[in-house]
């Protein structure tokens, strides 16, 4: 009997776990969904922008610890904002010197950005050392909320979840409710035409790319609460992230959300019944198989060509 109630509790927490994996995945994929989905640019260095966010948070947290411990509980929000700005700014620069010259060569963008990711990783190593570092998040993010004595919900999970909802909502509004979003979508649809109607496509591209990187930065900041921060931390995520976006059907933000959810749940549930490695293999293979059968991804509109 006891065992049964336990099981209920576990089921609940397992469900929650699925959700938080989903949020993590989505948070990572959002930036990419913008850059890859909207601009069609494959940024293999996306993971490194995530790492930038993480390191920014780390630096800030150490500063706070040493100089204004009183701020400890609050610094984290500032860290998130700062991560967004830093990653965004670097993204802006990268777009300017590199991406902008490669728009007509998607495959080459892929290769060039991969080279960039190598450079960035080594840069992290030179600056912060090869060791894993740990930004210590504010106390209030640690521990769990116990609903019952059996059901405990990790606070950082809740936090990441809230953040994800916020970001997703924000991006939705920006893309579909603002003039800027309209320009972005117009540029995606037809670059030449957009230029003709007086949209500064250069500017739009630059901002879009910067935004995408900024979002990656925020993701990085959020991950310091659940994961590790090392020079190669970001590169671990890159494949999953790309798959998520592709699986969702590149153009569609909704698709990205759906696929993130699907992948996360498969992963989390299968992990519960088999070894983590096998769960990973199972999940990825399933995604690949579905992609083989439906290459355009889950959501994709039939376009008149």
């Amino acid at each position, binding site marked *: 009997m006891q065992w049964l109630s336990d099981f209920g509790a576990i089921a609940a927490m397992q469900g929650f776990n699925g959700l938080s994996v989903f949020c993590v995945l989505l948070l990572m994929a959002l930036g990419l969904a913008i850059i890859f989905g909207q601009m069609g640019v494959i940024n293999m260095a996306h993971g490194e922008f995530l790492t930038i966010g993480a390191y920014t948070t780390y630096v800030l947290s150490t500063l706070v610890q040493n100089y204004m411990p009183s701020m400890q509980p609050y610094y984290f929000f500032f860290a998130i904002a700062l991560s967004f700005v830093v990653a965004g700014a670097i993204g802006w620069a990268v777009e300017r010197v590199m991406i902008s010259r490669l728009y007509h060569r998607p495959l080459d963008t892929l290769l060039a950005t991969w080279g960039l990711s190598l450079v960035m990783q080594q840069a992290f190593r030179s600056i912060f050392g090869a060791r894993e570092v740990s930004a210590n998040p504010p106390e209030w993010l640690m521990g769990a909320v116990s609903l019952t004595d059996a059901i405990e919900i990790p606070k950082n999970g809740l936090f990441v979840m809230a953040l994800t909802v916020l970001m997703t909502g924000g991006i939705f509004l920006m893309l579909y409710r603002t003039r800027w979003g309209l320009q972005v979508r117009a540029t995606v649809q037809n670059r030449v035409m957009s230029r003709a109607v007086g949209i500064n496509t250069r500017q739009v591209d630059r901002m879009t790319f910067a935004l995408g990187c900024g979002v990656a930065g925020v993701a990085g900041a959020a991950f310091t609460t659940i994961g590790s921060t090392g020079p190669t931390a970001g590169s671990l995520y890159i494949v999953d992230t790309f798959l998520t976006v592709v699986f969702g059907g590149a153009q569609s933000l909704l698709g990205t959300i759906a696929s993130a959810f699907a992948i996360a749940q498969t992963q989390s549930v299968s992990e519960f019944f088999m070894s983590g490695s096998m769960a990973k293999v199972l999940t990825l293979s399933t995604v690949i198989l579905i992609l083989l059968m439906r290459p355009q991804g889950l959501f994709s*509109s*039939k*376009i*008149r*060509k």
Partner: protein
Amino acid sequence: MTTASGFQMPKPVLAVEGLTVSFDGFKAVDDLNLYIDRNEVRVVIGPNGAGKTTVLDLICGKTRATGGSIQFNNRELTRMNEYDIVRAGVGRKFQTPSIYDNLSVFENLEMSFPKGRTVFGALFFKRSQQVVDRVNEVAADIFLADLLQQQAGLLSHGQKQWLEIGMLLMQDPELLMLDEPVAGMSVSERAQTADLLNRISQGRSVLVIEHDMEFVKSIAHKVTVLHQGKVLAEGSMESVQKNPKVIEVYLGH
């Protein structure tokens, strides 16, 4: 079956019936019927967005129909894939001349020669005398006989149009579909093209999309007017031009 295309020949080469395609609900082609006979040059006209190009796409398999049937010599095309449709004898020229800029005129034509179409066929394909003769023959037809070694990218726009038509002729198709063949051509070139079309329509059917009414007059045996994916009118050039609905559509906006 409309009387218009009815009784010269009981069996049309191409019989399109109830053809429909919709993109996210928007019906680009709507319950279209179209019949083309051997030796006929049919011109399809209509305002932009009438669905002219889409019809060609549907016939050659580039776009999949949502409903209806396309019978070509009693073979149902709607379920065949592009290359089989081509091999069945349907040739299609695209709106913007689509040729291989990197290759010479000769090679462009050679590419369309209906041999060595499989992987290993292509791997062990030999440039036989037969090929060379055929190429020369077609080249003569399309006024490019003395430009065979020219790199195709360097041809004039008109010549590119001809080259693409030539590439289709290499396949010796029964149905030839041309999307705006004289776009960007000089007056003299148009005359030459008209003459070319009249020559090559012998023994096959030709389906042309064109805006230039003078040119249409000079080639069309029969004209079909499309509007919003439907057949608005069909018949001789004269009858169509008198048709009030057509006038309304063309001058109405």
